[in-house]
């Protein structure tokens, strides 16, 4: 990164231009595939967000407009700075614009006016909203009109059910362009489940399942409070795909129970909490699917081989040889980049949110 230069908002473009001109003798290409607006409060998650962005531009360079808000600031302020970001490595073949907007207290009102002229004409604008969307809605509602894709971070919300309700109530008309970072984290599991239950016999077993048990990892991590979100996403995704309707949810000691109604029966979901050091908080460690006639499929990750997922299936007659799936190294920025650029619009996420918003968690 070329060190930041603090400039007044009116000079952002011209100062960026000067920096690029200073590069003219080097073999560095300016590459801005789209504009990414990032919003975060000044808190302990900020570095995580910045790492994700750095990770993202490795894959797809873009103009970053990074808004950092300090709501509890003693005074109003709005400061802007420019720099050039490049992927790590010695050779700076590709680099992109980075514009920082630091804002305190009521000056948040001004931000949308600062942002508007900075969008790259003709190219898509994406919005990464790294705070609870229910908290600061004014700027969000302005920026959402500019964005072709809106990425939330449900981790910042109080709970996934309120988050889902808020999104479904306020963004319904934009449902085809929404995504959540926690949703991206479940992509591997969703793909594996989809693949494992691909054949009609296996799918039949899933649709007739009587209970499903999930084990979720919880370990001390100040950046993860809502460690159950990924598990909820997977369960409510299955429910939305198989047309299960939510009936009730309760917590007994450390175990969460959810009951869904199916066409002629019901299915009980149990979420147990584990603590394993090698996994991240919120990671799903195990899924067990139980059906009639002793049919059972277990998906399990082990500490000795965290990137592998073993699948064991059996019934009263036979026990099949286990097989393995591979979990990819999770680089959030790369997943995010794929989501923005290469993934087509899918309604699986919003159908899942819709199912989650049926839950009243009060």
């Amino acid at each position, binding site marked *: 990164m070329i060190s930041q230069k603090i400039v007044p908002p009116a000079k952002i473009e011209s100062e960026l231009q000067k920096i690029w001109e200073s590069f003219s003798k080097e073999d560095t*290409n*300016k*590459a801005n*595939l789209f504009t990414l607006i990032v919003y975060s409060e000044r808190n302990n998650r900020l570095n995580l967000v910045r790492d994700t962005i750095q990770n993202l531009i490795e*894959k*797809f*360079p873009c103009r970053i407009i990074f808004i950092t808000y300090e709501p509890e600031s003693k005074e109003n302020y709005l400061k802007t700075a420019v720099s050039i970001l490049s992927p790590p490595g010695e050779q700076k*073949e*590709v680099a992109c614009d980075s514009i920082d907007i630091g804002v305190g207290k009521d000056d948040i009102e001004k931000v949308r006016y600062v942002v508007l002229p900075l969008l790259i004409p003709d190219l898509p604008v994406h919005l990464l909203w790294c705070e609870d969307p229910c908290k600061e809605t004014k700027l969000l509602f302005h920026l959402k009109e500019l964005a072709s894709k809106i990425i939330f971070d449900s981790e910042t919300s109080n709970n996934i059910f309120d988050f889902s309700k808020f999104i479904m109530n306020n963004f319904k008309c934009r449902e085809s362009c929404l995504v959540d970072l926690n949703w991206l984290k479940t992509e591997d599991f*969703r*793909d*594996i*489940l*989809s*693949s494992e*239950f*691909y*054949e009609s016999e296996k*799918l039949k077993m899933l649709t007739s399942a009587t209970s499903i048990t999930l084990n979720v990892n919880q370990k001390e991590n100040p950046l993860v409070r809502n460690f159950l979100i990924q598990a909820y996403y997977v369960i409510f995704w*299955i429910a939305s*795909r*198989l047309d299960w309707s939510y009936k009730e949810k309760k917590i007994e000691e450390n175990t969460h129970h959810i009951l869904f109604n199916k066409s002629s029966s019901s299915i009980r979901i149990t979420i147990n909490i584990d603590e394993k050091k090698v996994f991240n908080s919120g990671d799903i460690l195990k899924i067990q699917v139980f059906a009639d006639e002793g049919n059972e499929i277990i998906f399990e990750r082990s500490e000795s*081989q965290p*990137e*592998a997922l073993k699948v064991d299936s059996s019934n009263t007659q036979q026990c099949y*040889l286990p*097989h*393995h*799936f*591979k979990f*990819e*190294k999770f680089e959030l920025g790369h997943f995010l980049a794929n989501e923005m650029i290469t*993934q*087509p*619009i*899918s309604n*699986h996420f919003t159908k899942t949110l819709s199912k989650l918003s049926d839950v009243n968690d009060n």
Partner: protein
Amino acid sequence: MQKDNSHPLEDSEKIVKSIDPCTLVIFGATGDLTARKLIPAIYNLGKERHLPTNFACVGVARREKSHDDFRNDMEENIDKFSRTKPIDKGFWSNFKERLFYHQSQFDSDEGYESLKIFLSEIDSKHATGGNRIFYLSVQPKFFPLIIEKLKKHGLIYNPSDEKWSRVIIEKPFGKDLDSAKELQNQIQEHISEEQTYRIDHYLGKETVQNILVFRFANSIFESIWNYKHIEHVQITVAEDIGVENRGEFFEEEGLTRDIIQNHMMQLLSIIAMEPPVDLSEKGVRDEKVKVLQSVRPFTEDDFKNSVVRGQYKGGFVNGEKVKPYREEDEVSDKSNIETFTAIRFFIDNWRWDGVPFYIRGGKRLPKKVTEIAVIFKDSPGVLFQHKDNKNEPNVLAIRIQPDEGISMKINCKVPGPSSPIQPVKMDFRYGAYFGKAPPEAYERLILECINGDSTLFARSDEVLQSWKIFTPILEYWEANSPKDFPNYESGTWGPKSADELIKKDNRSWRKL
């Protein structure tokens, strides 16, 4: 099992993710192509999560080798040849468990029987579902034999079966029209056209696929893509290397069979085709065939005036002294094989009436470059053209490799009180936007085959039509030995006759 779009868990938009499980069987597993291209391609596909989750790969070759020997060799090859380096040890430790080796002679019935048993074991262990791709990375003489044996031993299913089997065949597909037809007949006895995937790796290149996007997803170009606006088209496939260790192969094939008849004709078809009705395999390939069918047949006069062949002498390439073709290993010192070809084509259809397509390809040229250049007609000369000083024509250059991208040459006013006009370039470079390491062509093609999409593979009528164009030229050459071979210095842009070919039309080759 074929894809069922009604599957509730499947995200129909994410077509890549829920592709059928399968096993890829590579015949010729100890060969150069497997080492340099195929295994690195499979590794990168796996690493980037494009392969089906239940996937295995079996290398078949004649040499004795254990699974571990094969895995170790492939690890070295990935480290050396993969576009992503160094090898990701974490990923590899898991991935290599899905790589296997099977020793067999290509004509041994026992070998195919044991392969069948081995593949069944893999199916049950790795849930690969019985679906199979056979990649024939072997000399073409083995194609009919291997396909016949695969069919005989039940390794190839009928197209109507629930499980699928597909066969990928490397070029060259025949030596001329007759041999290509014969090979086609031999293959067709055992497998259907839908099961046959004739690979032309040029079609797997991102920049080649982008030609379709460029032409048909940008409305401004299609309206001027015709004889009214385009003056001529130049296609260049230049290599700075010589024949390297392929002397024996080259003596048999020559440059025209090696790259012109296949790769360059693919480029020509894509640049000249009509918009397809859809992007299906039939839609695209039908239009490509029509272009080849419209190529004006060569007459005796054309063999002399529209076709040029050359062979390199010694010279200097990249500052290094290089030897003449006739002194290369396994090459006859009296060889008359061409290492350079330039041809002027006309496509006799409505769109391209009277527009010449000049193509040139060669070895030991000054640099490695593949480019398609569309040269537009001059603007009316009433305003900015001065006496004796015509403006440069607009040129749209599509660079296939290296430095992939698209540039447009336009005329621009030089700042100042007078108004001299200077050509400038608007440049789009792939690397600047999408990184320096686009997926290798083989990655895309293997993936397309797993997906059962043959759009990027050559269809039999396409191959035969191309041979129909080139066989008379090759026969003429065979009957009329070149009198001036070797006729161009290494490190130059080919023989003088190539310059004359285009000069007599008052045009010149682009300086690349």
